[in-house]
């Protein structure tokens, strides 16, 4: 295998692994802000136990997220040197802003959050919680802004040519608010809220099934289900906005998402299917003209298809983009039905009696995780063959001076380390869950009040 494909595999592997954790940090962070806020407001000790319990899980998740995130920061330089030189002027400022404004905030307050129970007042502890949560939200902003610039570049001009070509910033705010960044940030935030809320729902549904920690689980379920329901619904609209933007700015990506080949014709909307890239045909169940309707509110409107582009200018892995995209959509829909029905049962006061619902919830943590991953795979594979859309190809962006053996070495290295890390993560998560949200000895200032 050559350097390019190895570097792509390594980047995909390390970023996909990394992305298990930040959404959980953001989502559980939101739940923690709610739990600790409720504790301060009501003084109900159960909320403090919940806060402490989830904070311990949060600490592991956050830690792995940071450790794997630092690798991402340097991997641009090690494996994508040409790309880094090309976009440093733009991409770099977003990364630097992330470090200063977001990571600095979350990482300093994390120490207070985890170890400061006895050293600061409850209000200051809560402020630290909010600080960490906001830091993780800002983090997402800057990283998604940088990625969105790759998808829909704005506020720049290209200087020099050939090897010396560089993108230079002309308008910082145009760069930050490039056409897709606001919608994608919202989409990513909501995906993260869902990841966290469903993790909380999962664990507490498991307790309810086991008949353990019942009171506290009822208490945790309500805000988590509220968050899950709200953002499952709003995610639908945000997803639709994002798709509209893809239609406008990256038509080839949209075409790949639905396996639409004909250069100019109405396009179908598939519930599921299989794309044969050679025969340029999709086998599956679809709504004729459905995509045209979604984009133009007209079943007969033309949608630009893959064949409008030269083969070298459009994604080659059409079926993969199609499948990832449809996995994301299907899960999104499933989450809406699940949360709406659960909310209905909750309103009728019957939610916790339904064992089968609790069983579904116990496994539901996987759904937003898979959807988040699939969504990113669709977005990034659909961006191909470009690393900066319309300007720099992925095949031009990798480090020329790095050899295939070197990348193979690091790929194996990360493969081994991340496998171990994942086992450790599952092991300690399991242990913390088995241990449960139980009372601690009341030594803290919080408990003395």
């Amino acid at each position, binding site marked *: 295998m050559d350097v390019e494909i190895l570097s792509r595999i390594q980047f995909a592997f390390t970023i996909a692994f990394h992305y298990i954790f930040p959404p959980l940090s953001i989502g559980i962070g939101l739940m923690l802000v709610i739990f600790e806020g409720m504790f301060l407001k009501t003084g109900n000790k159960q909320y403090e136990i919940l806060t402490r319990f989830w904070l311990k899980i949060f600490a592991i998740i956050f830690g792995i997220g940071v450790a794997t995130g630092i690798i991402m920061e340097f991997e641009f330089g090690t494996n994508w040197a040409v790309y880094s030189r090309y976009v440093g002027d733009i991409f770099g400022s977003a*990364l630097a802003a992330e*470090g200063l404004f977001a990571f600095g905030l979350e990482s300093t307050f994390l120490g207070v959050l985890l170890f400061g129970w006895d050293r600061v007042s409850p209000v200051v502890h809560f402020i630290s919680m909010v600080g960490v949560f906001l830091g993780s939200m800002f983090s997402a902003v800057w990283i998604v802004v940088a990625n969105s610039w790759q998808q829909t570049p704005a506020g720049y001009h290209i200087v020099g040519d050939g090897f010396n070509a560089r993108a230079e910033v002309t308008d910082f705010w145009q760069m930050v608010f490039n056409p897709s960044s606001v919608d994608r940030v919202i989409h990513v935030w909501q995906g993260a809220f869902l990841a966290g809320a469903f993790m909380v729902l999962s664990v507490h549904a498991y307790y309810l099934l086991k008949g353990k920690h019942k009171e506290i689980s009822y208490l945790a379920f309500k805000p988590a289900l509220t968050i899950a329901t709200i953002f499952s619904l709003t995610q639908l609209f945000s997803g639709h906005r994002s798709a509209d933007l893809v239609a406008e700015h990256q038509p080839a990506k949209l075409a790949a998402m639905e396996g639409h080949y004909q250069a100019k014709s109405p396009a179908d909307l598939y519930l599921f299917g299989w794309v044969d890239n050679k025969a340029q045909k999709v086998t599956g169940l679809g709504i004729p003209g459905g995509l045209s309707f979604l984009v133009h509110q007209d079943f007969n409107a033309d949608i630009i298809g893959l064949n409008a582009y030269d083969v070298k200018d459009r994604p080659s892995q059409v079926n993969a983009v199609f499948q990832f995209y449809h996995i994301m959509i299907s899960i999104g829909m499933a989450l809406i039905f699940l949360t709406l029905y659960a909310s209905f049962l909750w309103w009728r006061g019957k939610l916790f009696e339904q064992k089968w619902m609790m069983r579904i919830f116990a496994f539901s943590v996987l759904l937003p995780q898979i959807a988040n991953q699939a969504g990113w795979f669709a977005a990034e594979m659909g961006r191909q063959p470009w690393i900066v859309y319309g300007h720099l190809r992925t095949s031009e962006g990798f480090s020329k001076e790095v050899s295939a053996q070197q990348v193979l070495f690091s790929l194996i290295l990360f493969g081994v380390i991340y496998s171990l890390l994942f086992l450790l993560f599952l092991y300690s998560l399991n*242990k913390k869950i088995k241990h449960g949200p139980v009372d601690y000895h009341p030594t803290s200032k919080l408990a003395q009040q």
Partner: protein
Amino acid sequence: MATILGIDYPTLWFFVVGFLFSGYAILEGLDYGAGMWHLFFQKDESRRIAINAIGPLWDANQVWLVIGGGALFAGFPVLYATMLSAMYVPFMLFLAMLVFRSSAIKFRSAEPMLWWRKTWDILYFISNLMISFLLGVVLGNLIEGIELKENFVYDGGVFLSFLSPYAILTGITTVALFMMHGAIFLLLKTEGRLYAKLTFLLRRSIVFFILSFSILSVYTIVFIESVADRFREFPLFFVLPILALLSIANIPRLVSKHKYFQGLIFSSLTMSFLLMLVAFQLFPVLLLSTISPEYNITIYNAASSEKSLGIMLTIAAIGTPLIFIYFLFLYNTFKGKVIMDDDSY
């Protein structure tokens, strides 16, 4: 060309990057240094205290690496890209060791089994040692230069060429400096028998540092020819090595008086002065080409556009005071000796 106080933007950004990496060396030097003493403590309790001394701080200290890396990427993308891809193997090892290190901190005390803790203890020690050594190695390569040809393309060996004798020496000196720095820090955080043991270890590490530093200095003067030329050209800068030597000499004096906080300040100053010396030696070059000076990466051919640097100087001017406030709050919250409780590692 736009300037502030008569200094152009790339030079200003060079100061910013230098400042950030000094901050990284000083703060993470504490953590890495403390980590390298890990196996010198026999009792599990002592090892836990040593880890908890950095417990609430190390995540925050790591911020300086992230910001430093970001600042390099943003301000000098050419250096960031070329240095990382040319020194691929050491950087990958460095990153892998960072993961081991943070895993060891998080997971070591999570289980009571002896084998579990022993394994993590060894991994923790090795990762801190390797990280410190590799940082020194990279610094050594920056001073010596690497084989850069046209278009900033690296043309040297790919696996072990980064381990020149000089780079090994800078690596060892960095290890010694961090160990001394970490021991002083641990002395501020510990009591009783562990404290007594550390006073003994600290004396050893001072000797280790002074020895390795002396060898490195002689080697530098003899083999890195451009050093002498630099000082002949700018004799005023002789003040830098003098300041560095004075602050190094001050450390044993303060330590013998048990003034560890001042000691820590002077070991931090030592790091800053030594990095300033490196900066003075290189400026305006960032990465020396051993093939031809015309292929050198300098602050001018590596820098982002003036517009971009202007934006980032604004970002830094807003962000840095914020970071200082966060750090003051954090370090103030956790000042004093380690107190173990349920939340400790």
